[in-house]
């Protein structure tokens, strides 16, 4: 437990610069996109008023109504997807940096006394903490964006609604329901476990064997979707409605196996 906490602390310290960069990038990109959307909307309203020689209300009407908060934050989804992509890259980097570069920290890690399981656990914890902090930052950004939206747009050009309505528009990432956060963290754990497995296989075996094993896992993921779908349809039409839920259960089971495999690889096969 102590080792896991110490190593997690170390991983976070080593990642600070990158995380600050990622978070700053996220904040700047979202606020910039919001300001752009507001500026673009106001510009088009003013242009309509000038060209058509009509009132502001008529121009707003002609432009499809006031700017919804969901429209103003239109780019947020893409930015979040980009941030999630960065997290996946970070999951690769958190391992490879220990081998690459001037410092070969992997020697230190593998030679630490006690079980090597703490190494995997600390890297996974670091990533989950990063995702949790991004969710928190996203929530703060939502409140900030809402304030900016209400402040920058004249009353006629905005739609005032409660934060819950905004959250509804923003869906999963913008809600602060514990179940949603847990779901995001579970999804992160699943994706990261598969990324870890890819890295650990590549670092433990020759390239060809590593590719073969990663390929087999990918086949297991795809085949699972098909087999579960076909089986449920064959049993009953009612059951086929539950395809996604059954598949998620299957993926969770597969993730448990992958996690076990990761721990075994670090304990017995990983090479410097």
């Amino acid at each position, binding site marked *: 437990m102590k*080792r896991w906490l*110490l190593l997690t602390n*170390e991983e976070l*310290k*080593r990642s600070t610069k990158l995380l600050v960069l990622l978070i700053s990038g996220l904040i700047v990109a979202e606020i910039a996109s919001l300001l752009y959307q507001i500026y673009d909307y106001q510009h088009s309203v003013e242009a309509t008023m000038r060209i058509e020689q009509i009132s502001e209300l008529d121009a707003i009407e002609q432009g499809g109504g006031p700017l919804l908060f969901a429209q103003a934050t239109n780019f947020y989804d893409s930015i979040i997807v980009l941030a999630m992509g960065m997290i996946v890259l970070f999951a690769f980097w958190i391992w490879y940096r220990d081998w690459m570069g*001037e*410092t*070969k*920290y992997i*020697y*230190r890690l*593998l*030679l*630490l*006394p006690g079980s090597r399981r703490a190494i995997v656990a600390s890297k996974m914890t670091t990533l989950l903490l990063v995702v949790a902090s991004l969710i928190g930052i996203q929530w703060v950004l939502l409140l900030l964006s809402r304030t900016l939206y209400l402040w920058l747009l004249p009353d006629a050009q905005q739609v005032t609604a409660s934060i819950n309505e905004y959250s509804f528009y923003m869906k999963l990432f913008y809600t602060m329901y514990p179940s949603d956060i847990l779901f995001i963290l579970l999804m992160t754990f699943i994706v990261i476990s598969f990324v870890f497995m890819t890295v650990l296989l590549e670092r*433990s075996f*020759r390239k060809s064997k590593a590719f073969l094993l990663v390929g087999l896992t990918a086949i297991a993921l795809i085949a699972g979707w098909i087999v579960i779908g076909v089986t449920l349809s064959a049993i009953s039409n009612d059951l086929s409605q539950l395809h996604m839920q059954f598949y998620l259960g299957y993926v969770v089971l597969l993730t448990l196996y992958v996690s076990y495999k990761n721990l075994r690889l670090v304990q*017995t*096969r990983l*090479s*410097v």
Partner: protein
Amino acid sequence: MLEVKGLQKRYGRKKHVLRDVTFSVGLNEVTCLIGLNGEGKSTILKAILGLIPVDAGTVTVDGKTSRDQIAFVPDLQTMPSYMTIGQALTYMTDHYPDWNSETAERLLQTFQLFTTDKMANLSKGNKAKFNLVLGFALDRPYILLDEPLAGIDLFMKEQIAWIFSSEFMEGRSILMTTHEIAEVEQVIDRVLFLRDGKIVEVKETDELRGRHHQSVQDRMREVYQG
């Protein structure tokens, strides 16, 4: 006693790196593993430490398979660059129950290293010295050194080689790989000559000097140049 029995290691089907490597390192003994580049010297050390999996063979320390009696001094930096020496020492204190802070301080003083020095700013020689601190400040009887003098200027080499005849060697057994035989020849008790992944000859240095009137370097030339 550190005993290595029948170590075998292949990379792929063709490349046989280690072939039935068997030897032992006794207490209070300095053993040097000698071989040309790519003969598998570092691979043997990594295999002993469990840093690479082997295809066959066993490593035991006093009859046990646990490696917690072995310290390692690599020829590369293993502490993150952002750390200062002081932070690296704290890291060692936190993680290693057998870390000896007193020994570490004495070694730092001897090598004129300072806790405020940043890892990233250390010269190659000072990095090598700090690696020795990290290895020798662990209260472990067996120390493995991988090319401790490689790529370092003459004066720095002398400072580093000093440790092998210092009080820090008391109760220690050393297994090291090196190409810089001249600097350490006087402290070596035994030499293992490695060729094509096999130990081809084991010689006591006293025997070499006394009976054969040869230095280790002379013997090395004979073994590798015929």
